[in-house]
């Protein structure tokens, strides 16, 4: 079977699986977040943390809860890492303070940027009690925020957006944990390791000695992908044969990282009582994903002459197509796991992965973050297009007025602000440039990629860039923190202002937000806004590299 055929088949199987799963999963999630009953285990949690699950929160309270939960998470994780040497199972792992800050922020913001080497920087204790816990709760936070925004659109003339603690707990117990369990078993069956044995020393073919770490990899791997986290057990991430041994596990991992983000449009459609709205968002996400996949695959396949194409930095057991598929999916969601080194991609292929993130992580984006980012772009689209039908723009009968457009525009502004400012500073700051592996356009791409990845909470890296210095660790941590929580607060404020509005009835004069024309425009706005913002930077990075 040729690469092309097997590549296309892989994609076809993936798309078929997603198509089959997103409807029941999406509907299930809608049920989860509208259910009036609580599970027994959930009630236990509510009693433990003293939360009244029946009470609802206004947007400010909801946002305060999100921030408080996350900031406490960062502090706890930071303390865990700093004091890991005196905690159990230390095994000699250690980290600088600035690296610890970076890591703590990174895992709480669902970024999983790893300035440290996975197996050497953190002890198994920190991995389990700290990082893994955040791998579960950080996507649940994103999910809760997305649901709050959907409620803002679905509900009419109220003030409450739901209860963050309830949404968090339900997201965990009813969605993320069960799916992660299933995912771990499937990966285990596929050959991913899961053990607690001590490191094994083996003699290599050349006669050298190599220490092989074991660990609870399959369980970690499942939540790493499912929660769009991306922090690998091993430094080599999903390129490591223990994490991702074969084409089947590779496909399963890509499926896992896409499945929740691609199911959330359905949840949205069901919750707002108009499934066509869900199809619109799904169409938007899928189009962008397909667009980027085509671009990256095309440039990788055509990157190098010779029978194997551009195999530098890719695993031979996967090949070009599955690597391009993984790269596109991991950057289109906020995962950041890698099964190949993006640094070694062709200029346009690597640029494509970079641009996927620059679109704002909405094709389909991270767990929850993808949906709310897409809805923000939908509001932007409605505002521009809505005027063209001669009415005050509205989405689902909610008017997009002064307050709504201000919040939307500011949300859109956050990520470019971080990326452009820090890349601009970094590219002329010796502190940063000294860490670059490459020179010329490729070096620029390295730095830009790092800050784009951080600001979008992606976590993947152009590996040539050594980011473990105090300056880069702290600026990247700042990007991750602001890139995560500024949009969350703005989105919740937006939800608060939408929920207060009465839903207007649909008439022939209303702009339908479910027509193919609208989907086309929706995609167009995302590409044009992202493209216009970053075109100059991309021209000097990947484009200059590709065209010279």
């Amino acid at each position, binding site marked *: 079977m040729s690469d092309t055929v097997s590549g296309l088949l892989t994609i076809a199987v993936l798309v078929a699986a997603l198509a089959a799963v997103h409807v029941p999963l999406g509907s299930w999630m809608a049920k989860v977040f509208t259910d009036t009953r609580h599970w027994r285990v959930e009630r236990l949690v509510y009693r433990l943390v003293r939360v009244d699950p029946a009470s609802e929160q206004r947007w400010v309270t909801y946002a305060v809860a999100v921030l408080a939960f996350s900031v406490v998470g960062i502090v706890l994780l930071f303390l865990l890492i700093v004091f890991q040497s005196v905690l159990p199972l230390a095994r000699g792992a250690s980290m600088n303070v600035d690296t610890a800050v970076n890591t703590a922020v990174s895992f709480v913001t669902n970024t999983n940027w790893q300035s440290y080497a996975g197996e050497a920087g953190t002890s198994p204790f920190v991995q389990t009690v700290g990082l893994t816990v955040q791998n579960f709760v950080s996507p649940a936070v994103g999910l809760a925020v997305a649901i709050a925004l959907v409620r803002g659109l679905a509900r009419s003339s109220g003030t409450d957006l739901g209860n963050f603690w309830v949404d968090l707990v339900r997201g965990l117990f009813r969605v993320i944990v069960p799916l992660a369990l299933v995912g771990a078993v499937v990966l285990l069956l596929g050959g991913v390791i899961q053990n607690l044995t001590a490191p094994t020393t083996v003699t290599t073919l050349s006669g050298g000695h190599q220490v092989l770490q074991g660990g609870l990899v399959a369980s970690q791997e499942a939540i790493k992908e499912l929660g769009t986290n991306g922090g690998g057990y091993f430094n080599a991430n999903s390129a490591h044969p223990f994490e991702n041994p074969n084409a089947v596990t590779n496909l399963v991992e890509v499926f896992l990282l896409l499945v929740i983000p691609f199911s959330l449009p359905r949840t949205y459609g069901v919750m707002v009582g108009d499934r066509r709205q869900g199809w619109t968002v799904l169409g938007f996400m899928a189009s962008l994903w397909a667009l980027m996949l085509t671009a990256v695959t095309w440039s990788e396949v055509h990157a190098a002459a010779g029978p194997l194409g551009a195999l530098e930095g890719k695993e031979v057991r996967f090949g070009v197509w599955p690597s391009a598929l993984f790269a596109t999916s991991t950057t289109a969601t906020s995962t950041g796991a890698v099964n190949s080194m993006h640094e070694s991609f062709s200029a346009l292929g690597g640029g494509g992965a970079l641009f996927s993130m620059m679109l704002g992580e909405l094709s389909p984006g991270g767990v929850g973050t993808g949906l709310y980012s897409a809805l923000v772009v939908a509001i*932007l689209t409605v*505002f*521009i*297009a*809505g*005027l*063209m*039908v*001669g*009415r*005050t723009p509205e989405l689902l009968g909610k008017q997009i*007025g*002064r307050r*709504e*457009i*201000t919040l939307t*525009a500011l949300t*859109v*502004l956050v990520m*470019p*602000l971080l990326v*452009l*400012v820090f*890349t*601009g*500073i970094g*590219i*002329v700051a010796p502190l940063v*440039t000294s860490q670059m592996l490459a020179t010329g*356009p490729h*070096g*620029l791409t390295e730095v830009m990629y790092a800050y784009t990845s951080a600001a979008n909470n992606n976590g993947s890296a152009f590996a040539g860039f050594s980011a473990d210095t105090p300056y880069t660790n702290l600026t990247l941590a700042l990007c991750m923190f602001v890139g995560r929580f500024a949009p969350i607060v703005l989105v919740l404020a937006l939800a608060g202002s939408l929920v207060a509005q*009465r*839903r*207007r*009835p649909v*008439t*022939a*004069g*209303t*702009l339908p937000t479910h*027509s193919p*024309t609208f989907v086309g*425009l929706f995609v*167009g706005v995302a590409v*044009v806004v992202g*493209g*216009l*913002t*970053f*075109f*100059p*930077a991309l*021209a*000097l990075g990947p*484009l*200059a590299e*590709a*065209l*010279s």
Partner: protein
Amino acid sequence: MTPSSTTTSSPTASNPADPMQPGARRQKRHGRGNDGGDALIRPGHTSTSYTQLARQLVTTLPQAVAKLDPRHVWHSPVMFVVWVGSVVTTVQAVADPSWFAWTLSIWLWATVLFANMAEAVAEGRGKAQAATLRASRRTTTAERRLPDGSLETVAASDLTIGDVVVVRPNEVIPGDGDVIEGMATVDESAITGESAPVIRESGGDRSAVTGGTTVLSDGITVRITTRPGETFIDRMIALVEGASRQKTPNEIALTILLTVLTIIFLLAVMAMQPMAVYSGQAQSPVVLVALLVCLIPTTIGALLSAIGIAGMDRLVQHNVLAMSGRAVEAAGDVSTLLLDKTGTITYGNRRATQLLAAPGLGNEEVTRAAYVSSLADETPEGRSIVELAAAALDSPTREALDRLPRDGATFVEFTAATRMSGADLPDGTAYRKGAADSVARWVTSHGGEMPSGVVTEVDGIASSGGTPLAVAVQEPGRAPRVLGVIHLKDVVKPGMKERFAQLRAMGIRTVMITGDNPLTAKSIAAEAGVDDFLAEATPEDKMALIKQEQLGGRLVAMTGDGTNDAPALAQSDVGVAMNTGTMAAKEAANMVDLDSDPTKLIDIVSIGKQLLITRGALTTFSIANDIAKYFAIIPAMFVILFPGLDALNIIGLASPKSAIVSAVIFNALIIIALIPLSLKGVRYRAAGSTALLRRNLLVYGLGGIVAPFIGIKLIDLVVSHLPL
């Protein structure tokens, strides 16, 4: 409605200056051309011919230059960035002179100047109107009546609320107020442009008078209701001058979006310099400013305020005064239209539409009888019977009948007691026409009888929502006979059905408000094609309906003229008061229609939509333009460093410098090119939203992508010959 009121006439119908006659209005519009006149009426939309526009642009140049003041430019964040960029470029050009720097700085200043011109042209139109209005305001004195009844002469500007003034013929009414005594014909042409005088009288719905209008005959006593400086004309002047212009909600929202876009582009351009330095080719500030100005949405930023002013101005051209821009925008959002049946949907009086002969009798006889009995009936219903019958009679017969009065016939006037009118001929023959039951009583009391066939006809007409009138004759010495029935009904104005269909396509539901009974209302509603009706409506019902619609999230528009309409006008989102209406109605409404034409509401909705569409279309165009500008400027900036980037120069611009200059020139010229569009507004056709979106996207989205490629290329062909 009961037949008791069949032959009464409505007061408006007999008003000689009925402003609702469309003919009169149209004539007026054509009659006053460019003379500037003493009124707001100005030629229609065709006024924006290019030569005229060119002249306007030249004459507004001084104003546009004055508007270069940064304190003014500050109001548009986008243009302020251009202004700062122009200053930077000029400083650079002075410090390090070159053709390139000077060309760019001149065109950047031109960009700001063109934006100011657009605004000045839009404002200029209002200023001319304000001047003519001011001229009508120069009332000097007023005769104030003191509590003891004596009069004193005071300056009009000293009048306050509650003062009572006496106005005699040929005097100008000194301020807004209500007539408390007397009745007069008033020339209101100063504000309406309507030269036919109107009647103003104490009490009722025609008691309001406007300062600046002139009493022609008789005299009235007026109680002043506004403070000096706040009169209707003062407000009109402020409005058309744009002095009190506030940014509308949508305009503010759009400005915010444009500002954030500007910030994003500012960041993109600023971040570019360190990247350029890293890459080994720092860019000159002039080039960076050029890139920035091309990227930020200058086209819409420059035209935004002109679009808003022109939108208000378009309303004024339709003789509608909007008290706030908010209301104009709301008009575009209206989803329910409340229309009074009388005068808006129907002609306002029942008209004869059919003559039905009694069973066994010929049409000829009933036609003659109807004609004769209505000859002296001056009510609109009576006139319509004469018209209908006359059309069915041959001319000798008609002439013979017309001679009857001279031949000694006497006419019986309609009275509320008899509810009949008719004629008694010299030979003793008596014709009677009137409410069916009255005629039946007349016939039976004189020994005749009501044939059952006629009763059936009468019931049939009544149940269809019409009004039946019976016609009877009593020849000398014989018992009276019923000859037939006249079918009176409300006649729906022609074209209404089509207009309502258009409105439906626009997503607007029309509700007809009428005092008629549900049966009549239903039949007229069906005939007119309205979506719904409210029968036997009281002001409270109307209010309840508005609130109910608003509760469902719908914006409601309505017209009204009476004092009892005022609460509903205030409650509705777009309330249009008729200028003939009371001061209370005008105060409560957010628009006043000077023509007092209730169907104007439909135009107002279109204008509101057009305003929003124009903004959206130019925003889309402006953003779409950026794609081409990137392809022009980015390769130009870095082609020396990365020769491969020349592949992005897809339109083959001559040199890096010519590419940058061409993009900046295009960016400036496109503003001038779009001034007519922003003043006229994007053409709006009533259509479903998807069709509208698709069309506008094609024209302004796709057009916005393609146009600058062509434009910049053409400019480059010229610019490449300059010694840059």
